[in-house]
């Protein structure tokens, strides 16, 4: 038994049975239940037992507060809905009346009783049993205080795409320090690769680069590009992140970004990353002209010096002598309070669908390749040409849903490809005057100004054929079709199969999660869904938070979305982070595990079981310890400890056993085959 307020040494417990309108009262006889509690549980300490229409209302809460003060209650049981909904409400009422909020227990007689049966008698019996259990349990409750953790005002943003940039600027402009860790040599992400963006046809670089410069020059933002996160430790407000800054082989304190090294480098390689494999770069390079930071990076795997020990042209021609062949990776540790993961997406590998000919037929391009082609700073300087690099096409076919909405590849819709394909249709028409065919299953133009864009494309005379393309082949049936690609498709709106010869095919490939997304999620302690997209805390009401406090997500890392949505999420995540930083200290739920040092034998079974890595082993004392801030109170270690040395505050063995005994005391007459579930 725990401390009491009654002069007789026993507890004074108040039981409140909520009607919840007719949700509970329609099935459970609430009057009988309350009366029963008053009479039968008096020996358990129940001094007050009432029923009320809506306990969560302000009047209902006031009822509890008054009783605590007047009747000197030291424990409260509320039989109502699920704690998920109103545990906080009733705890709030208790603390306003001066009672420790953790001395309140809820019995869920709605979700677990009135919502699962229509048998009134059975429901009333079960409600009584649950209240009995709750009363027995609450006697064992101890007053608890929330754990306060300080919040480090610095923030880490992983990923320097548009979402990451937006979040960084918001936080930095609020006056707090931000680190951006970006895997590529420059920030900008996928948006930097695009030519024009829908629906406004803004030039992507024109709207992105001012932001990128702002980030580059901001006093509160520290850029770590060409870097990767290696290890993450800590908890909300106190994360310690190890970052590996990969060797650039360029001394950034000396480099003036003149670009001579890149000009003079004799090694030309296919640029798989920024130019999507249709352009070239040198072994020492900056990915694009407006790169931030502008310092070049040396690709060690393709460098003559590292292969054979000769060349060194870059070093020879570098004025300030900034080339450092002996550069090493540098590992740094960043201490931050919150993390925003804005790691973006990867593209579907179109080689997985051979019937579209990508990789076999030269004039089949992916959407990203086409973006690079259209880009004025791209490999063709913005000219739309076929694979030979010079001939413009006379007919172009654009295929939607390649790798999306398909059970064999990705079941989801990639959300942006319909608009992207319409944009391509417009660009092709504008720059080459070619005939354009779009092949779609459904036209998804849902957001602001999107359907207006669709109308514009219709106006231009684009041929829109509703049908998922069956195959792209170079085997034309008739003479005179040499070099043409035939698209075979059922035009579902006329119900006939058509074979349409085109010069060039563009595949609108799916957006996929980053191919190491599950690894990154694991590093940060968050989860991904079955595809690999990061899982948000609540899909509708909390899209930027995760189940791990202090780790936020923004942009396409949590699912395909367009630029406005990514920017919104970047701002949203920043706002959450700033709100935490402003509070300077946060209260964490005290429902945690704690290890009784006397009983711990140092067997370390619990260490490996903790899903949050919250248990550490003190080698000197030969004892395990739980970090109260990291611990989320899941109870795994409590159950696993062979010595029973770990207690879960708020879920102690005594409390649970008492609840079971209380439940068992009340007979519930079930059919033989029916199990009772609480």
């Amino acid at each position, binding site marked *: 038994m725990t401390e009491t307020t009654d002069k007789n040494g026993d507890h004074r417990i108040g039981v409140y049975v909520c009607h919840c309108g007719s949700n509970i009262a329609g099935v459970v006889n609430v009057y009988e239940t309350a009366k029963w509690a008053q009479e039968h549980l008096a020996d358990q300490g129940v001094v007050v037992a009432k029923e009320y229409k809506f306990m969560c209302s302000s009047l209902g809460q006031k009822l509890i507060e008054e009783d605590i003060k007047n009747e000197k209650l030291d424990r409260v049981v509320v039989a109502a809905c699920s704690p998920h909904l109103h545990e906080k409400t009733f705890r709030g009422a208790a603390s306003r009346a001066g009672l420790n909020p953790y001395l309140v227990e809820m019995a869920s007689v709605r979700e677990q009783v009135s919502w699962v049966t229509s048998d009134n008698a059975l429901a009333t019996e079960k409600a009584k049993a649950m209240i009995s259990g709750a009363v027995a349990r609450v006697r064992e409750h101890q007053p608890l205080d929330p754990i306060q953790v300080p919040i480090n005002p610095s923030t880490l943003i992983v990923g320097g795409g548009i979402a990451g940039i937006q979040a960084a600027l918001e936080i930095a402009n609020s006056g707090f320090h931000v680190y951006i860790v970006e895997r590529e040599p420059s920030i900008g992400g996928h948006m930097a690769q695009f030519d024009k963006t829908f629906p406004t046809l803004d030039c992507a670089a024109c709207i992105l680069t001012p932001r990128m410069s702002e980030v580059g020059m901001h006093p509160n933002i520290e850029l770590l590009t060409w870097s990767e996160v290696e290890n993450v430790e800590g908890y909300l407000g106190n994360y310690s992140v190890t970052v590996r800054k990969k060797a650039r082989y360029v001394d950034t304190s000396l480099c003036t970004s003149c670009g001579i090294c890149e000009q003079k480098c004799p090694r030309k390689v296919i640029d798989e990353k920024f130019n999507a494999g249709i352009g070239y770069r040198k072994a020492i390079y900056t990915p694009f002209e407006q790169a931030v930071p502008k310092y070049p990076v040396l690709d060690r795997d393709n460098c003559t010096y590292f292969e054979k020990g000769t060349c060194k042209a870059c070093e020879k021609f570098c004025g300030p002598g900034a080339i450092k062949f002996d550069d090493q990776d540098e590992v740094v540790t960043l201490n931050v309070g919150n993390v925003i993961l804005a790691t973006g997406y990867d593209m579907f590998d179109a080689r997985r669908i051979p019937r579209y000919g990508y990789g076999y037929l030269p004039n089949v391009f992916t959407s990203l390749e086409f973006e690079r082609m259209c880009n004025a700073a791209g490999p063709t300087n913005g000219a739309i040409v076929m694979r030979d690099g010079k001939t413009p096409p006379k007919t172009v076919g654009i295929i939607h849903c390649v790798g999306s909405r398909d059970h064999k590849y990705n079941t989801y819709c990639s959300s942006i490809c319909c608009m992207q394909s319409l944009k391509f249709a417009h660009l092709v028409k504008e720059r080459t005057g070619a005939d354009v065919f779009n092949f779609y299953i459904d036209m998804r133009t849902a957001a602001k100004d999107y359907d207006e864009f669709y109308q514009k494309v219709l106006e231009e005379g684009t041929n829109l054929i509703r049908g998922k393309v069956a195959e792209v*082949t*170079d*085997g034309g*049936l*008739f003479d005179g079709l040499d070099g043409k690609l035939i698209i075979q498709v059922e035009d579902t709106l006329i119900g*006939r*199969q*058509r*074979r349409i*010869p085109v010069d060039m095919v563009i595949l609108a490939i799916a957006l996929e999660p980053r191919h190491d997304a599950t690894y990154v999620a694991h590093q940060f302690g968050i989860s991904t869904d079955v595809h690999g997209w990061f899982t948000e805390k609540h899909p509708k009401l909390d899209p930027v938070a995760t189940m791990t406090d202090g780790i936020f997500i923004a942009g396409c890392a949590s699912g395909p979305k367009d630029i406005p949505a990514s920017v919104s999420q970047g701002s949203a995540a920043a706002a959450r982070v700033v709100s935490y930083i402003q509070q300077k200290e946060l209260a964490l739920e005290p429902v945690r595990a704690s290890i009784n040092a006397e009983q711990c034998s140092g067997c370390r079974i619990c260490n490996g079981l903790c899903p949050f890595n919250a248990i550490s082993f003190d080698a000197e004392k030969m004892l395990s310890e739980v970090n109260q801030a990291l611990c989320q109170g899941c109870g795994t270690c409590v159950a696993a400890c062979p010595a029973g040395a770990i207690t879960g505050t708020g879920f102690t063995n005594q409390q649970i056993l008492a609840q079971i005994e209380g439940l068992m005391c009340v007979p519930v007459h079930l059919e033989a085959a029916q199990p009772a579930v609480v």
Partner: protein
Amino acid sequence: MKYLFYPGCSLECISSAYYESLLALQNKLDVEFEEIEDWNCCGANEYIALHRIPSYALIARNLALAEQQVDGAKTLLAACSACYVNLARTAKYMGTDRELNTKVNDALSAGGLHYTAGTVQVRHILDALYKEIGICKIKKLVERPLTGLRVAAYYGCMVLRPDPDQRWRDPENPTALEELIAACGAEPVDFPLRTHCCSGHMPQISTEASLELLRRLVESAVKSGADLLITTCPLCQLNIDAYQDEMNKFFGTSYRMPILFFTQLMGLAFGLSPDALAIGREVVSSAPALARIGVKVEQIPPPVKRPPKNTSLPMPRMPKAYGEQL
């Protein structure tokens, strides 16, 4: 290595060349094919058009007989693509569709038989040769490389699709036959229509439909520079071979594209004689193609032709458009 073997009706007579050439390979490949005792027709794509449960019961009788014959060799091989799909599909559905299993076994029990799902593994011989015996071993057995022969590999449909047991890594872009051709020393050509349908049983139903599909295949093979086609399916061989004359007549073309079974090609590369491989039994003779690499085929003299009555030159026949636009 012993395998259970289901020949199928086609191999008995119309594609006896396939049967004989396959058996001729047994010694070379060190395998033994044990035929199912008293097997019955699998029903092709005809029986299932009329009845569903009886069709599965018809096929399952063979599986039940195979189950009785299983003694170490649990793999049942089929050479005809349609027989393979029927057997493999039935074996798979007997395992996944409980209602089908109950009904089919009920029917089988009327004949004193039973098939326990999962007892027999059904595979096509191409799959078995490619994966179990392997290209390396086949390469080693080649005594007479077919250098200079340009061969187009024609898979047809059913050996690759629907692939109920997921044997092929990529049914849209297979390479097994091409690798086999290369292993035999010949040159595999790029034949874009290699997985397209030969029209199946359509010649008996709609001549124009089937002849057009055949024309596309033969034309594509010619365009790709092949000397001959090889295939894995008796019906594909029959259609392209026996109907080529009718196709030429209908369209006014004059293609002579011979088509052999892949086992016949392998046998040639292994040094067996064309006679032993039943080469020469095809309607469109492969003799000219094989003569290019020095293989002499004993030609069974064709029947004496009656002279044509009309001596005027025929007009070219324009192929009908099937929806293609320019």
